[in-house]
């Protein structure tokens, strides 16, 4: 008996329960796919951020005599575009605008949608009906159509493209936030907080936000993948960035005419969009399964 209680005591500290988020973090860190994706994304982010210090060619400086060089040309490892600008430099500099117009709408929609969904889910009643029925109207449009309708009406431009994509994503995030909040609302700890006199704002901020943020965050991470494709798509159509700015969607558009001359250089910007998009998707999948305690 005494021996058993001894070992039990010794074992206790080793099995000390880790916090939920620490467990999730460890599970993600052990997932090879997620780690590779995170590494690739960090690489793309850092190179875009540090582009001026990487010793690259000027992404705006063209030359008529060295247009559409092939991949592997000395001094131009990834060739040159239709105006003779260095592709490597433009792809790396292009990450700046492309990532901003792709990710910012999701961040904005995350903040707006979470607030709307939290309020709708917690307060319930008429306010819930008002918010959720308004959201339903936006669900009557396919998202690509809605994005193009809004930015087509507002006119071309970076700000307009960010605004239109934010409007597209707010309803989706609000729906997720509302359903998660409704699930948490009637749990005992919320009831306890209410009984001990906490006001609705305190309950939402202190007690509920932490419990609903996880699933919404995972959903939003997956949305970045869609947003990257759509944002670059708007630029591809001529509704986003304007030349001569380096941006992946716009580069794809202006290089379309070059597919008969130098097809593989023309396809390069799409590889970047694809890489960022797939990495965010896989990362979102990895987070979801890491947060799923049943596994």
């Amino acid at each position: 008996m005494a021996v058993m209680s001894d070992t039990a005591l010794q074992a206790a500290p080793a099995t000390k329960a880790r916090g939920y988020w620490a467990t999730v973090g460890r599970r993600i860190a052990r997932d090879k796919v997620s780690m590779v994706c995170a590494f690739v994304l960090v690489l793309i982010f850092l190179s875009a951020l540090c582009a001026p210090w990487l010793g690259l060619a000027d992404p705006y400086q063209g030359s008529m005599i060295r247009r559409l060089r092939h991949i592997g040309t000395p001094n131009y490892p990834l060739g040159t575009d239709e105006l003779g600008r260095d592709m490597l430099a433009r792809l790396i500099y292009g990450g700046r605008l492309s990532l901003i117009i792709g990710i910012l709408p999701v961040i904005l929609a995350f903040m707006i949608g979470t607030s709307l969904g939290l309020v709708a889910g917690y307060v319930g009643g008429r306010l819930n009906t008002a918010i959720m029925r308004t959201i339903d109207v936006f669900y009557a449009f396919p998202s690509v159509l809605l994005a193009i309708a809004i930015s087509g009406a507002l006119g071309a431009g970076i700000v307009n493209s960010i605004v239109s994509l934010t409007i597209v994503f707010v309803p989706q995030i609000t729906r997720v936030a509302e359903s998660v909040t409704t699930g948490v609302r009637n749990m005992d700890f919320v009831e306890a907080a209410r009984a001990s006199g906490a006001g609705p704002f305190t309950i939402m901020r202190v007690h509920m936000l932490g419990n609903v943020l996880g699933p919404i965050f995972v959903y939003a991470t997956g949305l970045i993948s869609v947003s990257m494709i759509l944002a670059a798509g708007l630029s591809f159509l001529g509704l986003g960035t304007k030349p001569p700015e380096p941006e992946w969607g716009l580069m794809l558009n202006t290089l379309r005419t070059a597919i008969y001359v130098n097809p593989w250089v023309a396809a390069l910007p799409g590889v970047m969009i694809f890489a960022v998009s797939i990495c965010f998707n896989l990362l979102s999948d990895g987070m979801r399964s890491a947060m799923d305690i049943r596994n």
Partner: protein
Amino acid sequence: MFAYIARRIVYVIPIVISVALVCFLLVHITPGDPLVAVLPADASQELAAQLRTAYGFDRPLPVQFGLWLWRALHGDLGSSIATGRPVLSEVLRAVSNTVTLAIAAALIGFTLGLLFGLIAGYFRDTWVDKVATSIAIAGVSVPHYWLGMVLVIIFSVQLNWLPAVGAGPSGSGSWGWDWEHLKYLILPAITTSVIPMGIVTRTVRALTGDILSQDFVEALRAKGLRELDVFKHVIKNAAPTALAVMGLQLGYMLGGSILIETVFSWPGSGLLLNSAIFQRDLPLLQGTILVLALFFVALNLLVDIAQAAIDPRIKRG
């Protein structure tokens, strides 16, 4: 069942009116006067005032909306500024081409998606599952307009097997179901099918996995049912959700075809939308978006009804 259908239709009416309102307001969020596109740059004040009255822009917004909705209900969406032709006939002709493309893409995407999804869900965590899920995740992550370009590079530029743009030999002309026309459909249809393929695969895989882990499957096996018959039960249980997802995807293909139609110069509603945007042809823009959104709402309604028809549990809710 009829009560359910009636309830669903009644629920759709406010949605249709709100959709019309959004389409109507689109023109009014445009910077500047909606007349800018119609008026010549050196127009006099009188001409501007005349046109404003002619188009009814001088009336209060709710009145304008009422009049516009009334005309729209009678099939009058105004006429295109660029061509002068009625918007509705322009849109419907273009939509029929988009429907052709969407159906071809749905056939490819849904068949592959169902196949991959069922196999991956059934053989979960084997190498087959890994291959299928990788294809699916690539499908939902690929910028489809770029994929279209790559396919053109391979099959049109390099191999010279299929045409790069258009919807038939010798320019426009009407669509026909012969090889000469089908050649033009292959690349855009494959490109369009990639996203639905990925999404259907992921959905069906998750569904199959969930169903297989339920107790009734264990009971069926214990009863001595052959694996093929167990599989039939799995399909039956996965059908309603899979159907809903496929309906939604078909709607996305119809409404979101602008990028692919631009890459392939496919003369559908997306290409029409593209030219309406860049010519600032606001009646055409408004009309195209309204028609596409109404298609989407109608499709969602049909999916809901079909779902209730094959799954008796839904009607009670």
